[in-house]
């Protein structure tokens, strides 16, 4: 029936219809991002220059990387609230390990990555085998990792970050055609995003994560190694938190409270990027744009004169409103 009606349509309206259906399938992050971006260029001339745009992309790259890691855990049905403390630990620990000597930069990064993987393993193993809900495990680890980092460095950061360590967060590649200066952090984000996109959208791993998030029992019965996949998701999340931490520290410098609240920003970015809290839905590019949309929203509000502490209020409202919207609309469909 429907095929006959479509075939009687003229060629032009058919194309229009196809374009329209393609447009309705575009996730809402992208139009929101574009609208906010246009708004921001009107509010501040900095953002209409290539330099300003690149600086913005560089500033938000660490959050986007954290959000990608957070998404792996969220779409498997868990939460990772220890990310912010991992960022703090990376900055404090590196400041000690670097010892003001550039030669120590890469060993320090290696050690931090190993510790990050360790944190992820603890999160994943305790959740999977001791069956403690992940928000309790990761909240506990939030205290534990932060306390350990502060104990390690004796309560205050030691020394400063060397330039080759800071490069990952604030460096530029100069004299690039079109872009002029291209941020190294953005290259890192593209590489990390690409690898994450492959394992999440092209390899089995992503489908298994989503299957677990959707229905653990069904996933288990269809042969998914639930515990292995879940532990891997937590390890990826903590590992990416280490990378994000190196970039945050490189951009912002050494500070005891540097990672505070980053886990909730990452969760908010994921929610904006269409990740279903409770599991079963997620996408790497959408989440990266979710983090950018969140940051640009804060930029807009900042330019409009909203004091900084209200960021938390907006973030809370976004999380609740989005989750409520999804919950109500799926209930209506049933």
């Amino acid at each position, binding site marked *: 029936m429907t095929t006959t009606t479509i075939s009687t349509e003229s060629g032009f309206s058919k194309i229009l219809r196809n374009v329209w259906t393609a447009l309705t399938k575009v996730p809402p992050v992208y139009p929101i991002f574009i609208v906010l971006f246009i708004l921001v260029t009107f509010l501040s001339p900095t953002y209409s220059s290539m330099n300003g745009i690149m600086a913005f992309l560089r500033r938000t790259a660490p959050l986007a990387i954290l959000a990608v890691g957070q998404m792996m855990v969220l779409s498997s049905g868990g939460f990772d609230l220890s990310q912010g403390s991992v960022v703090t630990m990376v900055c404090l620990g590196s400041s000690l390990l670097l010892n003001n000597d550039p030669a120590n930069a890469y060993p320090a990064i290696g050690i931090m990555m190993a510790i990050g993987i360790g944190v992820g393993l603890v999160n994943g193993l305790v959740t999977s085998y001791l069956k403690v809900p992940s928000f*309790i495990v990761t909240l506990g*680890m939030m*205290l534990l990792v932060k306390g350990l980092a502060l104990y390690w460095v004796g309560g205050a950061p030691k020394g400063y970050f060397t330039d080759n360590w800071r490069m990952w967060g604030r460096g530029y590649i100069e004299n690039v055609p079109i872009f002029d200066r291209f941020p190294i952090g953005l290259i890192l984000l593209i590489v990390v995003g690409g690898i994450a996109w492959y394992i999440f959208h092209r390899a089995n791993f992503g489908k298994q994560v989503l299957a677990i998030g959707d229905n653990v029992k069904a996933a288990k019965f269809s042969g998914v190694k639930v515990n292995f996949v879940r532990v891997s998701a937590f390890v990826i999340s903590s590992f990416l938190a280490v990378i994000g931490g190196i970039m945050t520290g490189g951009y912002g410098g050494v500070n005891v409270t540097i990672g505070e609240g980053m886990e909730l920003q990452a969760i908010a970015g994921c929610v904006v990027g269409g990740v279903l809290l409770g599991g079963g839905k997620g996408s790497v590019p959408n989440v990266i744009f979710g983090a950018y949309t969140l940051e640009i929203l804060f930029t807009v509000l900042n330019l409009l004169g909203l004091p900084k502490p209200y960021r*938390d209020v907006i973030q809370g*409202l976004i999380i*609740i409103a989005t989750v*409520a919207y999804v919950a109500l609309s799926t209930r209506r469909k049933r």
Partner: protein
Amino acid sequence: MTTTTLPGKRFSQFFRSLNIPPVYYFLIVIFLGSGILDVIYSDGQIFSNQAIRLNILVRSVALGIVAVGQTLVIISGSIDLSVAYMISITSVMSSYIMQGQTENIFLAIVVVFAIGALVGLVNGLIITKLHVNPFIATLGVGLILKGIINATFSNYTGSVPRSFEFFGYERLGPIPVSVIILFLVVLGGWFLLSRTKFGSHLYGVGGNVEVARLCGLRTDRVVIGAHILCSMTAVLTGLFIVSRLRAGAPWVGPDGVYDLESIATVVIGGTLLSGGKGGVWGTLAGVIIFSILSTAFNQLGVNPYLTLVLRGAIVILAVASYTYRSKNMVA
């Protein structure tokens, strides 16, 4: 054998109806263990000094009051992660309104309890009417409260009149007023859970919402009621803290980790995290265990940062000791 006298039988029945959970044996073990460690590595004051033992109870007051509210919420199958910021908001608001004047005490108390009821109502409404997962809803509300506090207050605000300090420092005979209030709150929680209709409804909703609804319960109202009571207990904790500190500070809630620790003590006390089973007496034991441990850390001179590590580890292990046997998969 069966010829127990009537009052004796009454007493044993009453004793059983209190449902004293096995966590109390654990409490005794922890107390003896930390006391012995204290004797070996320090001056042994946990055993010898009455004041320190009383101080363990005073330390329990702040966490204990809010943990009773958390117990009600968890039994109803929900959770409240906004209590830490609710405590902060109470501490700054009450101190700001009082401004050291005795005549403002009543107004301050009314205002903070009204704010508490409002926050609890909002939590409950978001969870029941908007169908948001309670964990996310209260995390979001906590974030909103945090933003509002940080935008308005940044340091010690106002002050508390001398007459209000009785809550934190006064004694009735040998027992501090605050400990009596904690005991009254726990007793109130026990009465509510085991002697009132609302209490039975909490267990019903927590056990299975759908069954409770089909039995004719207005399940939404029960959950909203639990959240309002929980925020009220957070307000009471905030009032206790402000009367101890003599001025309100915006960081008291998150610094005390009241959100995570209240949940942990509830679980240690034997209440099911998924709801439907548990009680306040176990929670009280969990709270006392936590304050014995922090007293012991103090006595043994553990580094404050290492204390943070131990607190995190203890919370995880304590919850794990209850959950590891479960067959259900969690996320």
